[in-house]
């Protein structure tokens, strides 16, 4: 203790102390941080088990031009190290990747790869570094439990509706980007989108929205997409703009037509 005290004014003391503090913080973080998905389990897509080697071949042939030979990224595409299998499944299995051209946002195109290809690509990317895994079918199943749907609706309105609209009809973002409509999206992909935050979407990780809550959101969306509109034709469920349009091009045209007809009757 005395030697330590004697050397406390040594020029290296500050640096040493900082180093020790960093080590302690780092060790504590490693010990306490919530563990992310496990890369050792091969991802499965609709039952197809991924194969890392085949995935790498597919990657080199289809993705490496933009994402780099080691998936390290470049000027044309981001690094894929640590994005996880969930991200690959979302981007490739919804037809967003491979990208046709640089645009404000990757549009959805016809899907190029089959389930096995997607599983292989996911396995390869997951093998690079740990990242969010593809959810199990049980995790993304929509329930018809009323309270889960109601809770999901509330979560959706608070977290999602400002971009996707209250019933998931979609909405515009800045500079030509947009939040797509959610009426024709597979449950698995909704879950993965929340998990990985593709494009402009923020990440809603498990600390933010728990897996159970994610499932409630999926249940809510499933409910609004499968329930017929109680009031009749919904006009796209995008609010008062289409209602106003309908009043002018539907109702007013009809009423003016009636007025013209009645007026013509006299003369």
């Amino acid at each position, binding site marked *: 203790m005395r030697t330590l005290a004697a050397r406390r004014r040594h020029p290296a003391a500050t640096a040493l102390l900082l180093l020790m503090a960093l080590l302690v913080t780092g060790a504590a973080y490693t010990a306490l941080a919530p563990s992310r998905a496990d890369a050792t389990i091969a991802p499965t897509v609709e039952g197809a088990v991924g194969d890392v080697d085949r995935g790498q071949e597919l990657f080199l042939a289809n993705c490496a031009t933009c994402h780099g030979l080691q998936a390290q990224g470049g000027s044309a595409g981001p690094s894929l190290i640590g994005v996880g299998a969930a991200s690959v499944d979302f981007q490739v299995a919804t037809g967003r990747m491979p990208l046709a051209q640089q645009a*404000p946002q990757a549009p959805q195109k016809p899907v190029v790869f089959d389930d096995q290809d997607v599983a292989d690509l996911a396995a390869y990317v997951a093998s690079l570094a740990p990242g969010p895994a593809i959810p199990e079918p049980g995790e993304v199943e929509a329930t018809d439990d*009323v*309270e889960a*749907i*109601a809770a999901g*609706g*509330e979560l959706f*309105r*608070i977290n999602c*509706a*400002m*971009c*996707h*609209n*209250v*019933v998931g*009809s*979609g*909405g*515009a*973002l*800045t*500079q*030509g980007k*947009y*939040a797509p409509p959610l009426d024709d999206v597979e449950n698995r992909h909704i879950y993965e989108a929340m998990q990985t935050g593709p494009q402009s979407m923020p990440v809603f990780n498990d600390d933010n929205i728990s897996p159970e809550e994610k499932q409630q959101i999926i249940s*809510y969306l499933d*409910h*609004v997409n499968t329930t017929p*509109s*109680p*009031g*009749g*034709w*919904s006009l796209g*469920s*995008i*609010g*008062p*703009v289409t*209602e*106003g*349009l*309908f*009043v*002018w091009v*539907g*109702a*007013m045209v*009809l*009423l*003016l037509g*009636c*007025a013209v*007809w*009645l*007026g*013509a009757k*006299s*003369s």
Partner: protein
Amino acid sequence: MSTPAGSTAAFTPTSRTARLSAGAADYLDERIGAARLVKGFARKVFPDHWSFMLGEIALYSFVILLISGTFLALFYVPSMTLVEYEGSYAPMYGVTMSEAYASSLNLSFDIRGGLLMRQVHHWSALIFVAAIVVHMLRVFFTGAFRKPREFNWVLGVVLAVLALAEGFTGYSLPDDLLSGNGLRIIEGVILAIPVVGTYITFFLFGGEFPGETIIPRLYILHVFVLPGIILAVIALHLALVVAHKHTQYPGPGRTNDNVVGFPLMPVYAAKAGGFFFIVFGVIILISGLVSINAIWVYGPYDPSPVSAGTQPDWYIGFVDGLLRLMPGQPEFTLAGFTLSLNVFLPSLVVPGLMVMALLAYPFLEQWVTGDNREHHLLDRPRNAPVRTGIGVMAITSYCVMWAAAGNDLMALAFRMSINDLTWFLRFMFFVLPPVAFVVTKRICLSLQRKDRELALHGHETGRVVRTADGEYFEVHEPLSDTERWLLVQHETYRPMAIPPKAHEDGRKPSVVERVRANLSGFFFEDRVEPVTPRELAAAQHHGEHEAIEQPTGDEAARRELTSGTPD
């Protein structure tokens, strides 16, 4: 009032029904003077034209609003007390919400006919305002606001503004997410009023937004104060129509001093009554088939979330559009106080100016024309090119504001950048209205020239005739007197003389005089004079003159052809 006994004696009803009705009429007449009312009112003549029924659409949808609104008021609870929803709409089960929203959900799902009534009420509200706008455009473009009807135009503008207020207060009542977002914008707008904004919002909301009093307050405005005022103004509006007599379109036999049409009883009453049921039927049909304001998808109001695609109903859309068009820069801090001109200008100043312009227009036009006569014959829009141009300019700028309110949905639907679209619309806001004015004015003038041509030379028949001499000419068919009258009956104004540098008494012309002369020049510099009888005679004489010069056999045939006898 004491004479009806004599009249009944003169007419002896034969059947039992006739005796009964005669007795009833007599009874009423002796007590409330029904005969005089019927005589004065039932024989009142109204001209007949489809465009005179536009105001009726507004009136009838207002009646439907009163009926459906009464039904809704029986079940709606204007309270912001929080309750847990236990009704039959599953996705809201157990959600905490205001009683107002819960009762609106009950109206939609648990009360028989409630959803239909809600949709009837909302659709007819949208139709009510749309019909007011269409009616107002008809009155404007035909010049029906001219003396003596300026005050009725003013009343109409007041009604339109009241309708917007009534619509907005109703939009806010269900207390769902959409209506709450709308209220939040209104709060922001009021806050932007310099100096007094914060005081007014606290006064209105009873404290911080949203508070617990705004729904009951809007409710009493929506179901009592505003409809009461609207009813009173409608009564005045219609009373003035009766007092002034209805305007009519020009035509043979129609003058400034008569009204050609049908009496109220029975023709017009039957027609108007029938039209009421048509309007009612159309509204019920639409309400039964098309969903409007699906409050259940929006969820209860909560100040934190805002949904994409949050817009007001169409008639408030222009204000929302102005807010979206306005750049954010003009917000200043002056001596510690924020001056939000970026909100104040588009949401209050510009709409205020628009209403002022509407109120002022009849008086302005009268000042410019200096015409102090009464006008009961309507203008054809083409015969008032500058007025028509101004009208189309107003429609155009309104449409740009309107489009801006849907900029996010347009950007989404057409895969455009919302930023570029907004910039485009900002430019269009300044570029399109003047272009619309010039184009419309030119079209009007061209149509007037076409009318002149037609009045002077008749219809082109497309029949080209070759005479034996080898001369070609096209056969023109002269107009009938009725057709020609429509084209030549109107008058044009001429611009006032530019005031001289100094009047004869040495007084310099005032600024007002010069402005008036300049405006008069702006209105009437470009004009097409209607055909005068002398011009018409000359044109006809021209044809005859040719005929006299060459009285050959061929010419005789030609004269026969040009005289418009049927082949």
